[in-house]
């Protein structure tokens, strides 16, 4: 095998994947190094435990490696990796049992919520970390299909198309889920933290 690693230009993900499949462990290590930070940040949105974050990210990379040969090069490597990470996180949340049971309400069947005109800003007295904790708590109590789109859109800053790719759903579904997720988030916010949600009487 040619020693692509000694080339000067930064290696493309696709090259590293090919080398890793060919048995070069350093190529895989480079891929891990390239994306570990983003995956730590991603997992962090679902849990605040460093041990759990590390487990989720490690598991993601181990799964990715074990099925590296199924990567089709049709999407970006990171999209593929992100999809594995999302599944790993959801799997993890299920096992941990803190995720609300989805059967209780099938959010896809719930009718479109009334357009919510309320403006709900965090109270100015709240520290940034307190805001983050409230948000985290509310997200934890949401059905995962809402939670994932909210995290991807609001915290990961992903475009609808990227979310659609990762979750393997249509853009229209992303749109409607996100719409419902926000309405739900807002609802929980004003019910659970009325004292911190400002500007309710718009």
């Amino acid at each position: 095998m040619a020693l692509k690693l000694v080339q000067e230009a930064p290696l493309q993900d696709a090259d590293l994947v090919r080398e890793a499949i060919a048995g070069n462990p350093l190529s895989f290590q480079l891929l891990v190094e390239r994306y570990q930070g983003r995956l730590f940040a991603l997992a962090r949105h679902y849990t605040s435990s460093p041990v759990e974050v590390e487990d989720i990210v490690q598991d993601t990379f181990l799964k990715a490696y074990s099925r590296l040969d199924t990567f089709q090069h049709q999407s970006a490597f990171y999209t593929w990796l992100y999809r594995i990470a999302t599944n790993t996180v959801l799997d993890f949340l299920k096992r941990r049992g803190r995720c609300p049971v989805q059967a209780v309400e099938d959010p896809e069947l719930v009718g479109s919520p009334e357009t919510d005109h309320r403006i709900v800003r965090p109270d100015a007295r709240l520290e940034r970390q307190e805001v983050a904790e409230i948000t985290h708590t509310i997200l934890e109590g949401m059905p995962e299909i809402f939670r994932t789109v909210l995290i991807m859109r609001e915290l990961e800053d992903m475009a609808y198309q990227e979310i659609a790719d990762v979750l393997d759903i249509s853009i229209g579904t992303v749109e409607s889920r996100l719409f419902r997720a926000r309405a739900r988030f807002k609802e929980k916010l004003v019910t659970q933290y009325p004292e911190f949600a400002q500007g309710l009487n718009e």
Partner: protein
Amino acid sequence: MNCEHARPLVPLYVDGELTSVQSAELRPHLLSCPACRGLAQAEQSLHAWFVPTAEIPVPTGFAAHVARRAVAGDTGSKRPFAPAESSNHEHSEPILQFVLHALAVAAIALVVVSIAMRRLDQPAAEELKAHESQALDASLFALDQINREELRAVGTNGLQGTRDGSSGR
């Protein structure tokens, strides 16, 4: 454009998902229509709740460690997750199993290292020095500890700038 047309576009506008043509069509309506403008503001107000949280740093040597496990055939899914920090009742992995596993990983890592050192003269290879694999069992054990200490050290100043929820995208 009337409200009926404008309303469904508002969330997309706030999310920056409209084309420039669509945005240009919607904007005059938002300027002239308090109801739709209010809706846009309501949609936007939620952004302020999504602020970055204290970052969890990647432990030193994480990539090398994961790559070794991967090459050793660990597919991840079978391994139980560590319990949440607060609970400690199921944290006792059998020591023997752990040592055997560490030895297996170290053995493979040594092979990897010898191959790597023959083939490469790159900085990336330095992460895989022989002494590191000898200390692998210790570092595996210490990983959680290091992680927590780093987090504690980062602690209060680990916060980064928040997204400005009040301005548009």
